[in-house]
């Protein structure tokens, strides 16, 4: 059984420049194999520009971390493409391609890349194709269940060309992207004049049903789950499947504790001593793992989410 590594996903929320720099100066000391950096959600978020992300990435890389630049997941305009080209052409850091256009640019530059979860790789043929373009690691779609993943990895292993697999293991799930900004909509602002209200919501805006069930999170043009996805109870099975890395998605508070908890749980896999780690106190919403178990993603740890009568 290989040892699972931890990675830090890109910050999906909009934080101020100071907060971002403070976050990564702390993250430099966490037990992480890879740090993903960059704006993956909204092209209007410019507290750090492309050059700033590249500079920050190079700085972190010098401290011995593997650093990957995450590309924008929704590329609409020529200026989005210009920024993407700059990221790809940085000459040093790898790219996480969150769009087929990004995969193409990386391929043209002859640069290996990470195939992000937005690339919708649901089978071994598609994975092999991305590998042939230069993908060295992939992140399955967040909705993929364990049986499907096991089948894909099993099938893919026949190609004899190993690829690394990383799972989205902790955090509010990135579920949808839109041209429309739902945070601006909440404030009755147009997207072009959004006044950067996302800065006021460092973990997004809660969206509840009309009977106050916590349901989703609004994060600008992105819609996320309210529930905090956690694969912590499944680490042994995940390691046995041949997965290399687990992604922790940054949150406004307690990211360090979450990483420490995962680290401890991974170490415990190789030790006969039983450890009971509870990360619920470090999530500000209910823990869910339905996707992994082939249920509705909203299903809480160990629960089946059936329509209540």
């Amino acid at each position, binding site marked *: 059984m290989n040892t699972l590594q931890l990675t830090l996903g890109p910050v999906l929320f909009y934080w101020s420049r100071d907060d971002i720099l403070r976050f990564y100066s702390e993250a430099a000391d966490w037990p992480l194999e890879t740090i993903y950096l960059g704006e993956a959600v909204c092209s209007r978020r410019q507290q750090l520009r492309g050059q700033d992300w590249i500079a920050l990435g190079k700085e972190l890389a010098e401290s011995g971390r593997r650093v990957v630049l995450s590309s924008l997941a929704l590329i609409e305009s020529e200026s989005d493409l210009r920024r993407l080209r700059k990221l790809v052409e940085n000459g040093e850091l790898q790219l996480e391609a969150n769009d087929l*256009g990004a995969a193409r640019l990386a391929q043209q530059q002859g640069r290996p890349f990470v195939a992000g979860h937005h690339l*919708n790789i649901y089978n071994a043929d598609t994975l092999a194709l991305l590998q042939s373009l230069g993908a060295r690691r992939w992140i399955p779609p967040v909705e993929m269940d364990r049986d499907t993943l096991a089948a894909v990895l099993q099938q893919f292993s026949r190609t004899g060309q190993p690829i690394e697999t990383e799972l989205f293991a902790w955090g509010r799930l990135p579920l949808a*992207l*839109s041209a429309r900004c739902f945070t601006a909509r909440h404030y009755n602002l147009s997207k072009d004049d959004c006044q950067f209200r996302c800065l006021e919501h460092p973990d997004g805006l809660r969206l509840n049903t009309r009977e106050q069930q916590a349901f989703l999170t609004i994060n600008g043009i992105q819609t996320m789950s309210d529930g905090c996805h956690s694969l912590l109870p499944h680490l042994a099975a995940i390691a046995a499947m041949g997965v290399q890395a687990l992604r922790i998605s940054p949150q406004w508070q307690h990211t360090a504790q979450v990483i420490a908890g995962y680290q401890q749980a991974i170490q415990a896999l190789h030790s006969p001593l039983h450890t009971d780690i509870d990360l619920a106190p470090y999530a500000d919403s209910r823990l869910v793992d339905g*996707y992994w178990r082939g249920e509705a993603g909203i299903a809480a740890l160990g629960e089946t989410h059936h329509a209540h009568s």
Partner: protein
Amino acid sequence: MPATRPLPELVCPAGSLPALKAAVDNGADTVYLGLKNDTNARNFAGLNFDDRTAREGIRYAHQHERKVLLAINTYAQGGDISRWHRAIDEGAELGVDAIILADIGLMEYARRRYPALRLHMSVQSSATNYEAINLAQELFDIRRAVLPRVLTLDQVKQVIDHTRVEIEVFGFGSLCVMVEGRCLLSSYATGESPNSHGVCSPAKFVRWEHGSQALGARLNGILIDEYQQGEAAGYPTLCKGRFEVEGDTYYALEEPTSLNVMAMLPQIIDIGVAAIKVEGRQRSPAYVAQVTRTLREALDAAGREPQRFSVKPGWTQALSKLAEGQQQTLGAYNRPWK
């Protein structure tokens, strides 16, 4: 500048043989359909085509010199993807004019097995920029890409100006507010999504709750909306429900609205859009007939006299009766909507 461009193809939905005939009879240039399984993104009970109806539909369309496209636009799932391969084989064998694919792994299979088969890139591929489209063009020689409903008209033009691939845009029907192929809200609530199962907010999870004051619409137990007496109730598509955000209850993501680009037809023709697609394989033959007839008239009028084109009240009336939630919008093509 007078439009010297050819008119875009009018591409209409066929959820059944009667709907296909309605589209052909009312002026569709092309119809698109899916097979009766989860290889297509409108995998609804009672819809779609088996071998017999597909053959009859293709015969009917070809007899009238119209084209037929087969949508295989879910992502092939897991270790055994033979179902998707068989669907491609079937399409090639049936003699459809093109296959619409979302999964690039399936594009690779289709190109390798059927070098002469025309391939379209589905809206479910989420290709919003020309780099993504040109990748599929170089690798698999795709001839057309359907753009997600997220770009402004200027951005659509930008794509057209940078690719040899024909560009198809949505013209009328339910408005998907999320980038197609990048929305998992349905599986978060129910376990089934367009990507994995070819469904969104599937009917088998819908439950109507008749209370003394209000009618509740639930999806897998989750309250999507609630209607007071006298309020028109809509299908609980989960992005079109009313939710509470910081004390306000409103359509937090999107109102139940239809996309209608009729007012923009001259510009759409002018920038070189190759095809205009009507959403709605889940709709009745009567709906398909009405929408097809109206858009055919509007498109022909815009082609004849682009400068003098205006939307006729009769067209608006005909379409507004069919529109979801009775409201219509230009959607993302018109920047303020965003």
